[in-house]
């Protein structure tokens, strides 16, 4: 077999396994069942060993059945311990999967004579699966494909057939039950499939890395999108990418391909944590920064407007502007953006409002005083309690809301303190 063929088959095997895992894992992540996936991937071990002992050789179908039984058993036992034993969810999972795993290891070391290596169960032998081939329809293909392809087909069928039901159950189990969907049945079906995919992937990537492929691409996709369909597509795509990059990385470092896939998945996840468009840490930080800067900017504008209102014209020195904006980074940004946006200009002694700035400030002060009027009217707050909430809310009342408030209060001209409520600036609606 040439290098190129080896790479092709290995990546294909990894990708097949990753896509099935990612699809199922998306539902696990959404339903907060990730740990059940982890537990099942450990707890199927005794099922596999028992199937092996009963049949006397490695036979895919009986291995599947053994894993299915123990996968569903794990989910069932953990649930039973929670209800009947009143043990916390995490502790009951911990008890069940460690115990079943211990049974599996004992069976393995005690009764199995052949080389069914524990290490191989944990770590997988992706590096060599391509070498173990069989003939299908005249073409020589790796034997693992014979289990991985059916597992993927089964997963796809499950997802497509139960698309609607799975969606409702994932987001609103109570609604699902009310609509007559058998959530319990669906739950155990999902668990059975997780067990099946786990055992199909064992040979390729090993149990811990099944966990990686179940959870990590799905969680990454969850950071990137808010829609279920896209999440599944993205997760599957990430699974394929992990297979490609993982394999190439493992060739580069001459190390375990399955381990490299998990690390690649972790790398994609870390990127998403920081750079995801809406849920990423960086974008959240930028949003906050922009908001703080806007509030600082608007505070300066409103202060200038109030002084103008009192004294006819107003100028503020740079340092007092900064003091109003708050002496920090966002304050400085807000102050600088006033100049960039042309809302203030240099006067004789400091800064004064430009006409555009005056318009913006007028809108702001209008929001502030309208809210004070509304609070005074509807909440009967004392006069000295009005300013504080209005100062906070003024930044979030857009012109439409302002008009609504004004209409509700029958177009007031004064706020409760007796000051004028400015009209909306001309040219704005």
């Amino acid at each position, binding site marked *: 077999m040439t290098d190129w063929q080896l790479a092709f088959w290995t990546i294909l095997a990894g990708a097949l396994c990753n896509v099935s895992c990612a699809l199922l894992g998306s539902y696990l992540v959404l339903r907060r069942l990730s740990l059940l996936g982890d537990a099942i991937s450990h707890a199927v071990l005794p099922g596999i060993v028992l199937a092996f002992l009963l049949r006397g050789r490695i036979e895919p179908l009986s291995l599947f059945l053994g894993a299915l039984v123990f996968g569903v058993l794990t989910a069932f036992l953990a649930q039973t311990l929670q209800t009947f034993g009143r043990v916390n969810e995490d502790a009951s999972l911990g008890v069940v999967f*460690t115990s079943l795993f*211990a049974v599996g290891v004992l069976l393995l070391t005690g009764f199995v004579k052949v080389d069914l290596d*524990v290490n191989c169960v944990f770590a997988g032998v992706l590096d060599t699966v391509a070498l173990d081939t069989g003939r299908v329809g005249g073409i020589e293909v790796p034997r693992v494909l014979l289990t991985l392809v059916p597992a993927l087909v089964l997963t796809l069928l499950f997802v497509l057939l139960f698309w609607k039901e799975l969606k409702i159950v994932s987001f609103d189990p109570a609604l699902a039950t009310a609509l007559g969907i058998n959530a319990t049945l669906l739950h155990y079906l999902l668990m059975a499939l997780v067990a099946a995919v786990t055992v199909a992937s064992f040979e390729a990537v090993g149990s811990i890395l099944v966990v990686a492929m179940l959870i990590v691409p799905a969680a990454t996709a969850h950071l990137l999108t808010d829609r279920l369909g896209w999440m599944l597509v993205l997760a599957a795509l990430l699974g394929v990418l992990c297979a490609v990059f993982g394999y190439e990385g493992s060739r580069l470092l001459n190390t375990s391909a399955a381990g490299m896939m998990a690390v690649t998945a972790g790398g994609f996840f870390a990127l998403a944590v920081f750079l995801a468009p809406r849920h990423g840490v960086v974008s959240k930080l930028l949003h906050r920064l922009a908001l703080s800067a806007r509030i600082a900017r608007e505070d300066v504008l409103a202060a200038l407007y109030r002084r103008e209102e009192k004294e006819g014209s107003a100028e503020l020195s740079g340092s007092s502007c900064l003091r109003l904006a708050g002496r920090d980074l966002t304050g400085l940004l807000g102050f600088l953006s006033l100049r960039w946006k042309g809302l203030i200009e240099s006067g004789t002694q400091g800064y004064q409002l430009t006409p555009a700035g005056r318009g913006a400030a007028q809108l702001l002060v209008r929001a502030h005083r309208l809210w004070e009027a509304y609070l005074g009217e509807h909440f009967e707050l004392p006069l000295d309690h009005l300013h504080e909430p209005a100062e906070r809310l003024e930044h979030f009342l857009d012109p439409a809301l302002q008009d609504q408030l004004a209409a509700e209060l029958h177009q007031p001209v004064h706020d409760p303190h007796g000051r004028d409520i400015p009209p909306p600036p001309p040219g704005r609606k």
Partner: protein
Amino acid sequence: MIAYNTLIVLLGTGLLGATSGLVGTFAVLRRRALTGDALAHAALPGLCVAFLVVGERSLPALLLGAFISGVLGVSVLAALARWTRIKEDAALGIVLSVFFGAGMVLSRIIQNQATGGSKAGLDSYILGKTAGMLAQDVYLVGGVGLGCLLLIALLYKELRLVAFDPAFARGGGWPVLLLDLLLMALMAVIVVVGLPAVGVVLMAALLILPPVTARLWTERLSPMLLLSAALGLAVGVIGTLLSAHFSKMPAGPIIVLVGTTFFLTSLLVAPRRGILARAIARGRFRRKLASQSFLRAALALAGDDNDPVALPLLQRQVRGPIRATAQRLARQGLLEVVDDEHYRLTEQGREQAVQATRQQRLWQFYLQEYPDVASASVDLDTETLALRVPAALLAELEAKLDAVSTSLAPAVHRLSAQGGVTVAQETHA
């Protein structure tokens, strides 16, 4: 006579069990049972890095590496759950699998580099090599155990607060984050020390099984800690002895299964939380409900002349098996048997029937008068109303009941002149 080697191993596993039982108690109460699992997996890359850097098997370096990467793993876990939309369960799965994958990548690199026989030994990392324990390992485990004991004794009050009511602790100004970190660090130390002996999955079990078992026997923290430590000790010692007996079996899984056996036995027979005890209590409660409904129905039918009542007439009002209830009440001297189908209330039975009726009416009154509060406790035992509501309210309800119905026994609770409440007579025979 026990061989020196066995003695060492016994001491080692016993101390390890006791220590993990101690620290695991807080983890289980804090619902962080599976953190130990994540820690154990996350320690692998650190172990490998330490090996690569130091270049040989130096125990302190390896332990330090494992400790650092374990703590790093849990910190990532906490940060993900805190700052992203990834939930705790998915975060745990991600940390566990990606770190483990990285560990596999590194360990393969080490294996490729190794010229002689010095492998880091992924095999013993997963399953542990209990028999390979040396005297220095025992000193280490003992020292760690002593340290944990000291820390827990010093911070007992704080740890207890955080374990049971973290929100209150935060509100009270306690450094919850710091205490959590301390707990994680303690777990990390134990996991790192225990890994070579029992292996990765089974280390998690040692942290979970003894505390969960102890939790079934007691509701108080200090007995739970003692019991959990004792159980851990017993599990380690018994498991080691068993595995010494079956020389082919690895000790780790056997230790875990001994723990599982303790847990299952406790689940069955524990005094209050055990399945048997709860079944007995439920049966007793059902019988009590049946007796009370029987007495009430019989009283209503018997009238003032105390006619014998026919069982078929009671059928609809009595909850539970009617004939068995009648025979039981007859044995208790509350009914006298007229014939197979007819029973008559005795003097004592009549008295209790009056009380039961009165209690039920009190409940109905309570539900009528305070439907908003009372509905929360509707299906509780009728006799406990006195325990559920303040004494003054009970007296008020009784007064109202007396005003509308005179046929029942007079109130037992009266408002005294001082506003306190006195119990006029003891009614529960």
